[in-house]
């Protein structure tokens, strides 16, 4: 969805591709999903304006006496080159720069930091106050975002298929969370461990958005990258955690290849063994657990998954089944063995064809 062209809210909520999609697939649930997605994407922008002012500027390295829970963001403008790091465009505590990508990255990394700190008491990527460096306007018409092991990098998109990658809050949450995985389990970026690495970034990314919007599991859209695709595309987002495989069906982008069940697990050498494809299976399991538990997904399901993400038993080569077993064990140790939480988690994995 293109916000710049979005003067009429009715038009915004029902762009042509969506109408076509509804006409094709037409279930009431899908209709509701699509409408909610577009509405919440607008909500983020208005919430952004209402974000409380940041604390005092702090450009230096944190001393031992400085409090935890203080974020230190620097946003760089790479100036449509690929020469990292680029020039400093906004530092912690500075007001809006007026550059949408710079300010969205600043706010998105801030919202992600706050989520980790307020909900799971995690102090940044390394749980030790690591400064957050976001780099925007990377490359020319660059349609990707990545974590390079030290920093988060965002392209402007090509304007034809993709809007700028900072437009969707969960993109910042997703990339920052790759850093969390790097400092915790170090899940290999290949095959099933790689799909779990992607999965955890999608879980955290979606939860950051749900937390900011105050949405329950039922209210959330469970989409990754809502608002990222332009109105030229037949699609609502990059991925759907609720219904993997349904986020887009477009003549140029192709069909959403994500499976929602182990029966449809994709064996491929591409994309590091399908890390962005098979993540649909654990994504769906997380959604099923959150939906079964009800309420805010970050409170119970999210806590179980976060406990698993930082669990020393989660190894770089852990696959789906062992990960599933760890979530069940963490549900039991957090909420009691044989309780409804453990039942919900086991049921969720069974729902995607994995017996923990």
């Amino acid at each position, binding site marked *: 969805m293109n916000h710049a062209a979005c003067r009429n809210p009715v038009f915004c909520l029902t762009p042509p591709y969506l109408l076509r999609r509804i006409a094709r697939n037409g279930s009431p649930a899908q209709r509701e999903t699509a409408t909610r997605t577009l509405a919440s994407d607008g909500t983020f922008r208005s919430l952004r304006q209402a974000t409380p002012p940041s604390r005092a500027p702090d450009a230096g390295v944190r001393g031992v006496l400085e409090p935890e829970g203080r974020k230190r963001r620097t946003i760089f403008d790479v100036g449509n080159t*690929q020469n*990292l790091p680029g020039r400093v465009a906004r530092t912690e505590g500075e007001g809006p720069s007026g550059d949408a990508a710079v300010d969205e990255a600043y706010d998105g990394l801030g919202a992600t930091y706050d989520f980790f700190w307020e909900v799971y008491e995690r102090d940044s990527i390394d749980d030790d106050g690591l400064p957050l460096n976001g780099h925007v306007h*990377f490359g*020319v*018409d660059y*349609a*990707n*975002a*990545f*974590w*390079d*092991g*030290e920093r988060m*990098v965002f392209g402007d998109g*090509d304007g*034809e*298929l*993709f809007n700028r*990658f900072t437009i969707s809050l969960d*993109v910042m949450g*997703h*990339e920052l969370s*790759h*850093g969390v*995985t*790097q*400092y915790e389990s*170090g899940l290999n*970026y290949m095959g099933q461990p790689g799909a779990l*690495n*992607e999965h955890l*970034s999608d879980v955290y990314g979606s939860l950051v958005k749900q937390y900011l919007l105050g949405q329950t599991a039922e209210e959330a859209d469970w989409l990754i*990258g809502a608002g*990222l695709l332009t109105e*030229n595309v037949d699609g609502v987002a*990059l991925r759907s955690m609720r219904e993997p495989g349904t986020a*887009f069906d*477009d*003549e*140029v*982008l*192709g*069909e959403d*290849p994500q499976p929602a069940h182990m029966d449809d697990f994709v064996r491929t050498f*591409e*994309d*590091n063994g399908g*890390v*962005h*494809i098979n993540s649909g299976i654990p994504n769906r399991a997380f959604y099923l657990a959150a939906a079964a538990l009800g309420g805010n997904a970050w409170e119970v399901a999210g806590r179980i998954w976060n406990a698993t993400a930082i669990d020393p038993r989660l190894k770089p080569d852990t696959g789906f089944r062992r990960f599933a077993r760890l979530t069940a064990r963490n549900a039991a140790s957090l909420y009691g063995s044989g309780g409804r939480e453990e039942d919900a988690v086991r049921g969720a994995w069974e729902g995607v064809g994995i017996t923990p």
Partner: protein
Amino acid sequence: MRLKLKTEGGFASFPGLQGPVEIDTEGLGEEEAAELVRRVRETRFFERPEGPGEPPPGAADLRLHVVTVEEGARSRTVRAYEPVEDPALRALIEALDAQAREIRRARRGRGPGGGPVGRPGGNVPP
């Protein structure tokens, strides 16, 4: 000279965007063909390592470019993760990517009633 670009992975990983896009310089205009050949020469394509090397530890969502060049009896495939450090290789990938986008644009324009829009020398498998 025949060139092929495949792009895998990335945060926004789409089946329709990974290609491969294939360009035969014989199907291009003289200037455009010469430009591509020059870019290939600048990368020292047939001498360079096949790559892709190890991405930095912990890195995620990096796209992988797979470039194949065939010239006479010679053929070589080079792989590189983003960000591509070598400016010559980066420029070649960007040039091929620009071709891929033009082909995709033509394909989208070929919708119902739009009539066929072709581009010589380029094709994307359906």
